[in-house]
């Protein structure tokens, strides 16, 4: 009972911080502050608005109209249909590839990080200190720094130009493991696990029925981070893949944009614009819907005092 209460309060502390007490710390609203921030909001949303508006234009009216207002025939749905049918429907293929990389790479990374973070938080084992030091160090290693070396190594194994060459490197998220580790340390009382062990439950069962439930908010945060990271990945697939059949959306779109100015190339800016809009829609929606999770995750990860 006591342990349960602590677990709940630990989870509650890091998930929701919505209400603020009304006191000296809640002053009057300021119009000036709001206006200045409004400028930043305009700066942030202008490119998105531009993308939305121009996805409704035909290739011809794109070049003959003001960028931030509608013009010509409303061809939003026509553009979407054209995006999916262009080049034998390669856009759909890229979208499905992206989903494959997100599910296998991002999902796999989240599962590995969750198991590992739980292991680090609640077990002692030989070599633990070395593992902790290496993982904390690895957070600072940028993925792009390793892309060229990883390509050279993967090509030795004949893994390049296969989906595995994109999925396998995506499976490691040191920052995700770190977040779960912090979260599991806070949210799961050791006493609760000890009690389950005394009852004779196996370690796997304890993890699945107690540990995993308590770190679920942390799990969702890491899932979001890896989802965005794999969805937005560009350098790694660009290096690893050579046939358009396996491209994700990012590499495919930049290919389309490269082909437009080339000699004899058909101008398809309207498709690049509509394709870009389609490519950002899922991540933006997921982010806005699940915002309380990423807020909690960032809070857990960056503000430890």
């Amino acid at each position, binding site marked *: 009972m006591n342990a349960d209460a602590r677990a709940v309060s630990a989870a509650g502390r890091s998930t929701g911080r919505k209400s603020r007490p009304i006191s000296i710390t809640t002053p009057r609203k300021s119009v000036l502050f709001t206006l200045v921030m409004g400028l930043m909001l305009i700066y942030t949303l202008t490119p998105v608005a531009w993308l939305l508006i121009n996805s409704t234009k035909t290739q011809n009216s794109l070049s003959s109209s003001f960028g931030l207002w509608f013009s010509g025939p409303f061809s939003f749905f026509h553009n979407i249909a054209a995006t999916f049918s262009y080049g034998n429907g390669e856009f759909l293929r890229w979208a499905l590839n992206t989903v494959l990389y997100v599910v296998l790479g991002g999902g796999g990374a989240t599962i590995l990080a969750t198991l590992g973070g739980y292991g680090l938080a609640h077990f002692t084992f030989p070599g633990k200190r070395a593992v902790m030091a290496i993982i904390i*160090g690895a957070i600072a290693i*940028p993925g792009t720094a390793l892309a060229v070396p990883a390509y050279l190594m993967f090509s030795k194994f004949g893994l390049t130009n296969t989906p595995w060459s994109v999925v396998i490197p995506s499976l490691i998220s040191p920052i995700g493991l770190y977040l779960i580790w912090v979260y599991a340390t806070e949210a799961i009382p050791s006493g609760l696990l000890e009690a389950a062990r005394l009852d004779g439950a196996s370690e796997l069962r304890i993890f699945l029925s107690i540990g995993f439930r308590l770190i679920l908010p942390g799990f969702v945060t890491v899932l979001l981070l890896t989802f965005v990271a794999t969805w937005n990945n560009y350098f790694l697939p660009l290096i690893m893949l050579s046939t358009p059949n396996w491209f994700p959306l990012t590499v495919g779109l930049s290919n389309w944009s490269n082909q437009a100015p080339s000699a004899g190339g058909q101008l398809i800016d309207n498709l690049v614009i509509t394709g870009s809009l389609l490519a950002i829609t899922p991540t933006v929606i997921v982010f806005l819907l699940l915002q309380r999770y990423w807020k909690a995750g960032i809070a857990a990860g960056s503000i430890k005092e």
Partner: protein
Amino acid sequence: MAASPGLGLTTPPHARPRKARRRWTGWGFLGPFVLIFLFTLVAPVIYAIYLSLYRDKLIGGNSFVGLSNYLTAIQDPVFHTALFHVLLLLFVQVPIMMALSTMAALALDSSRLYVASIFRMSLFVPYAVPSVVAALMWGFMYGSTFGLVANLNSAIHLHLPNPLASNYVLAALGNITTWEFVGFNMIILYSALQSVPKDRYEAAAIDGATKFQVIRAIKVPAMRRALVVALVFALIGSFQLFAEPNVLKSLAPNTIGSAFTPNMYAYNLSFNGQEFNYAAAIAIAMGIITMIGAYALQLGGMRRDDR
């Protein structure tokens, strides 16, 4: 590279020691991660270090050349220019972005904004936009055929310069990265501000502290650690810049060369020049430079902690 510094992140407190019976159970949970970690992170680094110490010669084939590839890089003017570009972004764009993020975080935390939640959510949206799409959107807007700059010039007879001309292309690039990450950094700093116990502000108010005194004595120290984390991310992002210039290249082929940033140089050395050994040396050199920078940032951040 494996021993690179972390992000000022602390080790969570140890779990209670367990009995010997369960000594190896932890490996069961951590094993899968460590196995793939070794294969995708540690092995490529070792392989790249190995490659960087060799050179493929027309006569005599693959031969050990020691640090010769690194010495070549130190004297390579193409590498210097690429490095200069990212250093300029690091020392000009990153401070501007951090200042904007800090001001936005302070404004959000001040509780003096109307519709604060709309600001908080919207400013973070670019983080969910792929860097390729960010570069495409801004590239179109910069463009002279149907970009906003061309629109403004013809509509109100302005003579705004082409943002993709060689004098401005770095600024145009810096604007894209600022747009992508200003909200992300704002959220990191804002989370740090939100962790300040409210009674500290009440105590300051009772003592008659002014708003600026509160910012200097309470809020800035509270943000320092998060600022170091954000700066390390920005440093890594600047040194490893690739996607944005590589996408913009098709719109500005005359101003963005194939070696505009160190990563683009390494990429083109490997894939257009087949100079894998030299490319590996560039990648490792950039990794070392990034590590030194991240470590220096943390030392600077920690030194102020002692005060």
